[in-house]
């Protein structure tokens, strides 16, 4: 017993009246480092201990106003600065609509942060190492007794004086409270194996779940961004139709708008003769042709048709469009290449409409003329 360090001298009382009088007296005698522990707040104790009123009200006011300010900044920034949008013909900053959000954020920040301030800053909790814990004193005051203790650190601490004071107010149990030696000596070390194992576990679990979510889960139904849907996609069978196909053919003898069938598959020479460019070389047509050429052809053929591909070898480089061969081709022959593709070059029928194809041909012609101008161009 004797080698333990004393923390405080304590007394337990049976009735709220006793404890109030005792606390009053302790205060009167000028003790500072003392406290009263009661199972519930005893009315009048704050006065007896002469505690100044709690300042937490101001804390709540401060955090409430900060929450409101945050809401104002958030709504202003999003709807005026970052992403201004007219909604319902109202001005960008339409205050009334923001009131609910402002109110909620005020309450949220006031409530949560005030409680956090009280627990962490005012009370310095969590603290399970306080010497009072696990004493008989603590066990009594958390149930049905009223306790008072004076710390040894108090300047006026004098065991005899305190003892007689407690006795005067009918204290039932009077005893010293000691520091718990094992707790005082215990030190947290970073390299404790338990701690390291904990860290490793956390790392494995977080990286594992992240990997699983991003690489596996996101590809499973129903998380797969609606990849899998109950609708008929091309090539699927569907029992509703007599022929069992999900895809429907156009009604016989009809042609959908813009879907003229191409008659010269595998017949480049016939196309070369039969197809004639219907477009006039107007500025608009050239502009359209340039636009489509730059989008669809230039990655492989280069902006000027010289075969300077930007594919960096990921696709075989095409020959120049300025070759004699292509220059001598008819428009219809080039049109055929675009429509059907040629060897490794794919068809562009799905990307380009008829008109756009012809405009592209016009533009290729212009490109060719730019390198190999005709004599007549000089006139």
């Amino acid at each position: 017993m004797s080698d333990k360090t004393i923390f405080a001298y304590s007394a337990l009382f049976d009735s709220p009246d006793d404890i109030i009088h005792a606390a009053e007296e302790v205060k009167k005698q000028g003790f500072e480092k003392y406290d009263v522990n009661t199972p519930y707040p005893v009315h009048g104790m704050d006065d007896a201990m002469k505690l100044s009123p709690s300042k937490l009200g101001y804390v709540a006011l401060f955090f409430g106003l900060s929450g409101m300010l945050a809401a104002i900044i958030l709504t202003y920034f999003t709807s005026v600065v970052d992403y201004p949008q007219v909604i319902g013909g109202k001005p960008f900053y339409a205050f009334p609509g923001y009131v609910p959000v402002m109110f909620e954020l005020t309450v949220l920040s006031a409530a949560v942060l005030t409680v956090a301030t009280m627990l962490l800053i005012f009370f310095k909790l969590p603290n399970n190492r306080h010497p009072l814990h696990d004493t008989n004193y603590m066990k009594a005051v958390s149930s049905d007794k009223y306790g008072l203790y004076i710390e040894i650190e108090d300047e006026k601490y004098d065991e005899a004086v305190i003892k007689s004071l407690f006795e005067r107010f009918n204290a039932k149990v009077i005893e010293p409270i000691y520091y718990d030696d094992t707790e005082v000596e215990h030190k947290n070390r970073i390299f404790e194996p338990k701690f390291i194992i904990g860290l490793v576990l956390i790392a494995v679990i977080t990286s594992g779940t992240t990997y699983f979510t991003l690489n596996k889960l996101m590809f499973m139904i129903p998380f797969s961004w609606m990849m899998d849907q109950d609708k008929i996609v091309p090539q699927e069978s569907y029992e509703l139709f007599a022929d069992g196909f999900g895809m429907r053919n156009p009604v016989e003898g009809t042609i959908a708008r813009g879907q003229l069938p191409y008659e010269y598959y595998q017949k480049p020479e016939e196309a070369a003769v039969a197809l004639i460019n219907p477009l006039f070389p107007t500025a608009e047509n050239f502009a359209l042709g340039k636009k489509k050429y730059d989008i669809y052809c230039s990655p492989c053929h280069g902006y000027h048709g010289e075969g300077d591909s930007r594919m960096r070898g990921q696709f075989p480089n095409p020959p120049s469009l300025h070759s004699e061969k292509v220059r001598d081709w008819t428009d219809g022959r080039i049109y055929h290449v675009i429509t059907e593709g040629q060897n490794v070059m794919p068809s562009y029928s799905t990307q380009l409409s008829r008109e756009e194809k012809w405009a592209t041909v016009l533009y290729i012609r212009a490109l060719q003329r730019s390198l190999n101008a005709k004599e007549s161009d000089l006139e």
Partner: protein
Amino acid sequence: MSAIDYTQELSVVEGKPPLREIDELIIQPLDTKPDKNFFIALSITGSMLLLGALMLAWSFYKGTGVWGNNNPVAWGFPIVNFVFWVGIGHAGTLISAILFLFRQKWRTGIARFAEGMTIFAVMTAGVFPIIHTGRPWLAGYLLPYPNQHDLWVNFHSPLVWDVFAVSTYFTVSFVFWYVGLIPDFGTLRDRTASKIKKVIYSVFSLGWRHSNRHWQHYEMVYLVLAGFATPLVLSVHTIVSFDFAVSILPGWHTTIFPPYFVAGAVFSGFAMVQNVLIIIRKIFHFEHIITLDTLERMNKIILLTGMMVGYAYAMEFFIAWYSGVQPEQFAFLNRAFGPYMWAYWIMVSCNVIFPQFFWIKKIRRKISVMFIIAVLVNVGMWFERFVITVTSLSRDYLPSSWAYYKPTLVDGGILIGSFGLFFTLLILFTKSLPVISISEVKAVVDGAQPSHGEH
């Protein structure tokens, strides 16, 4: 009975139990092994919960087409249930915050439990708007956060207000609840003999020492929280009602909605709290703490709010007539005499007529009768939300798009599942935490406060 002396405040805790006995009584459910009834109850609610979970899994695998929601009633069961459950939660905050501000001491016996119900009800409610989005795992999009699409939520939308209101409500209720629990965790920690429990309670008590220097701030914070929770609880159902009132649909577009919804929420919430408390006090022998007087007071509040709701029903009709707006008039006639007439009259009889029995003192104090009335109130309040949501949507301005909404079995399964979730949480709560605030009850026992009066 003898005449009552009105100058004397009646004790809210019957008898004058020693403080240690209060500990024992309240903590007993935590210290004893659960009995057979507990497991029977838990397995029932657990199966309901499981049913709901399976139905939800099915809904997301197949798509929300398995629900009854369709044009024009896009807000079927999910929204009805959402409003219903949020409403249930309101009673808890009313009891813990508003009655606290009014210094109603009788609240102490039931506050903790009612707050717990608030939290569970809001959790249950929160499920619905999230599943109603169709892909609940993307619910993060509901919050304003900086993202690479450079998109923000629309702060003018009542649905966004809802996100803020409900999440704030949940957080604040939870904090309020936890703050109330801290001293009790301290008491539990000092009583328990089991090592594991001791660690758990120590962690959650944060090392609470029942120090008066702490109690002083603690009471202040409790007051501040109550002060904030009071307007908060009113705002939450107000904002929920904005989901309807801010639209232009006849039958929704009315200014009476916010107060009417709040009254309805308190109404149904009190009915639910009363139901559950009747069972709890019986099972755990809390008759002296949750007294008959307390229940009677709750019945009075049910009667009051029931009449407020009834007034709102009448006023809606009056305003529809008085406004002279035809679609509005049609909407209300359609409610009362249209295809959903059955739902409307269930609602009126359960919400307006049955609570009137509470005028009679005998009924207010008769456990079995008041239990039944409160159940009916909740049935009625669920139908109120159904009537409001469905009738207006199913017949709006354009008769060519009218349709009759029918929920599917999956919808029903999810509704059952929501009750399963709520009651499962509640049952687990009764066995894991003190359902009555130990420190608060001790403070209101006769003789707990110094006799020499206020300073």
